[in-house]
C-alpha cells in the first residue's frame, strides 16, 4: 500500500492546500452570504464579488479544522503513541481531497439549484465523514498506530468530525424552527 506520508510537503504548503480546498467547497454558500451582508450593510459592490467570496468562505472552516486538529492531536499522540504525525498529515490531505470532491459535486447545483441548499446540508457531512472513515481504514492497515491503540485514535479523530457536524446540524435545526 502506498505510504502517503513518505514524501511530505511542507506544513505551510499543506495548510494552504487545505485552506484553498475549504474555500472551494464553501464558495457556493459564501456567495449568497456575502451578497446578503453587502446589501444589508451597504458595502461597496467592488468588495462583494466571487473572488472575495471564495477566499473568505474557507476562512472559518479552515480555522476551525486547524484548531480542532491541533487540539486533538497532542493528547492523542501522548495516549496512542505511534506515528501520529503521519496520521495528522494524511488527515489534512484527506480533508483537502474531500473538499475538492465537494467543490466538483456542487457544480450539479447549476442544473438543480432548487435542491442545492438541502443537498448542501446533507452531502457536506456525508462526504467528509466518508473520506475520513476511509482514511482511518488506510491508517489501520498502514500501521501508523498500534492496533491495540487504533480504536482510541479512530474514536478521537472520526468522532470529532462527527461531533462537529452533528452540532452544526443540531444548531441548524434549532435555528430553522426558531
Amino acid at each position, binding site marked *: 500500500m502506498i505510504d502517503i506520508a513518505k514524501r511530505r510537503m*511542507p506544513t*505551510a*504548503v499543506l495548510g*494552504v*492546500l487545505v485552506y*484553498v480546498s475549504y*474555500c*472551494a467547497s464553501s464558495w*457556493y*454558500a459564501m*456567495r*449568497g*452570504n*456575502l*451578497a*446578503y451582508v*453587502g*446589501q444589508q450593510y451597504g*458595502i461597496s*459592490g*467592488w468588495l*462583494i*464579488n*466571487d*473572488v472575495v*467570496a*471564495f477566499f473568505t468562505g474557507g476562512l472559518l472552516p479552515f480555522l476551525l479544522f486547524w484548531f480542532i486538529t491541533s487540539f486533538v492531536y497532542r493528547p492523542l499522540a501522548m495516549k496512542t503513541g505511534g506515528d501520529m504525525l503521519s496520521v495528522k498529515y494524511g488527515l489534512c490531505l484527506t480533508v483537502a481531497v474531500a473538499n475538492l470532491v465537494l467543490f466538483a459535486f456542487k457544480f450539479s447545483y*447549476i442544473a438543480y*439549484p*432548487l*435542491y*442545492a*441548499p*438541502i443537498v*448542501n*446540508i*446533507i452531502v457536506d*457531512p*456525508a462526504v467528509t*465523514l466518508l473520506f475520513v*472513515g476511509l482514511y482511518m481504514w488506510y491508517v489501520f492497515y498502514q500501521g501508523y498506530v498500534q*492496533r*491495540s*491503540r*487504533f*480504536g482510541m485514535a*479512530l474514536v478521537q479523530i*472520526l*468522532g470529532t468530525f*462527527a*461531533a462537529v*457536524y*452533528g452540532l*452544526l*446540524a*443540531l444548531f*441548524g*435545526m434549532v435555528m*430553522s*424552527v426558531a
Partner: protein
Amino acid sequence: MLKNRIIRFISILTCAAVVLFSFVACAQSGAPEYDVSAPKLAVSTEKLETELAAFLDECADRTTFQNGEKQAAEYLRARLTEFGHEPELQSFTVEENGVAGLTSQNVVARYLAADRDDDTPNVILGAYYDNRYSQSYTDAKAFRSEAALAGGTSVATLLSIAEYLTAQRPELSFDVTLVFFGASYIYSDGAQAFWDSGMTAEERKNTVLMAEMQRLGVDHVYAYTDERPTAREKFFDDVARANGLDVYKLTQKTPYITGATAYEGLPFYRWAHNGVFGTFVDEGIPTLNLVGANWETMDLTDAESADNKNIAYTENDDLETLKEYHPDHALKMATAATLVIRALESPEFIEVMQSDRDNFPHTGLLTEMWVWYMIALGVTLVVAATLILVYGRLVKKYPIVAPQPRRMKMAVFGMDYEDRDSADIFIDIKSSVGEDIFPGVPNNDNALDGIFPPITPTDSGGDNNKTPSDESDARSDNDDDIFDGKQ
C-alpha cells in the same frame, strides 16, 4: 528554502484565482441571444417620459399612510378615468411595526373580457405607487426622495399599458385587473390587502397570472417567473424574441442566499424575489416579475447598474439623477410594457397561464429546513453508532496488554530456587560470582573455622547446661592461647 516555499504558496493561490476567474468569466450570461437592435415597441418612449415626468411633478411626496399617498391615488384614479377605465379606490387599514390604524388605498381598474362568465380567467398587472418621502409614522425612516426609479417608472409603465388597452381595445378572453398598490414601498401591505379584501372569491380562483413591474429604467429589464420549471418562462422568452425586446433572464451569476426565503416553496432567496408579487406566489398564483437591475457583473449585490451606484431607496432617487445615470430609462420602460402587451395579445397566452396555474408546483417541503438538518444529524448519528461498534470490535480483537511491573530481585540461593517464568528480573548471585561472594573471605559453605572453631561438647555433662557465656569464656581462654602464640 523560504523563497521556494513562498513561491509555492503564491503559485497555489494564483492557480486558484485563475481557475476562479475562468469560471466566473465563462458563466452563462442572461442577455438575449437574438438581435435587439430594432425592438417593436407597443408604446412610445416619449409618452412614457411625459407620463413619468407628470406623475412625479404632481406627486413627488407620496408618503405611505399620509395625505401625499392619498393625493397620488386620486391622481392615478383621474388618469385612469381619462383613459376610459372605471377605477376604484380600495381603502384598507393595517398595522406596521406596532403602529395600528394606518390607512392606505389601492387603485384598481379592470379591463374586462369580451365574453365573460363566472369562470373567466383573470390577470393582474401591478405596481406600487407610494414612497417614504417623509416619515410615515413616528420612528419610520424617511428617504427624502420622490422615488422616481423605485416607484415612478413602474407607475408610468402601468399607466401606459392601461392607456393602450382602452385605446387599442384588444379583444381578450380574460379580464385584466390593473392595480396600483398603496403601502407597498417597504412592505407588501397593499398587495396583501388587495388579495384579502380587494378581490372576490371568484376572482381569486380565476387569477392565472400576476405580473409586477418595478425599478424599470436601469441597465437591464429582467423577466423572472420562477425557480421551478414553468411553461410561461419559455412563452415570455418567445414573445420577447418575436418582438426583438432586450429582456434578460436570471443566471447562476445571481447568488442564492440560503437561510432565507422570500415565499413558500423556495429554500433560498434571490434578488429577483423582491417585490409584492410574493404575496401571490404564496397563494399559488403564477407570477412574472419585470424588474430593472444589472446582475451580469462580478458584483454580487442587488446592483442597478455596472457603471453607477444604486439610486432606488436612497435620497438620490429623483428624475434628474435617473436621467443622468440612465438616459435610456424610457426605452427600458417601453420594453417592459411591450412584453406585457404582446403577451396579453398572444393567442397562446391564456392557455399557458392556465396550465401553470393548474400545475403550480408545491415544494413546501424544501423550505422545511429542520427536516434536512435532521437527516444530516441522522447521518452523523449513524457514523457515531458505527464508530462505537467498530471500536468495540477492535478492543476485543486487539486488547491492550497492560505491562506488569517488573522488579529486580537477587537470586540468593541461585535460580533453581526462583520462578523462572516470573516477570521479575533476577540477579543470580551464585552463578555470577562463583564460590567467593566476598573476595578474600571464605564463603558460607565453609565454616569460618579459623574465626569460629566448631564447638566440642565436654564431660561435665554440663555441656547442655553451659551457658553461652560459659562457652564464650572457654573460647576466650583459647583466644588467649592464640594471642600468646602457643597454638
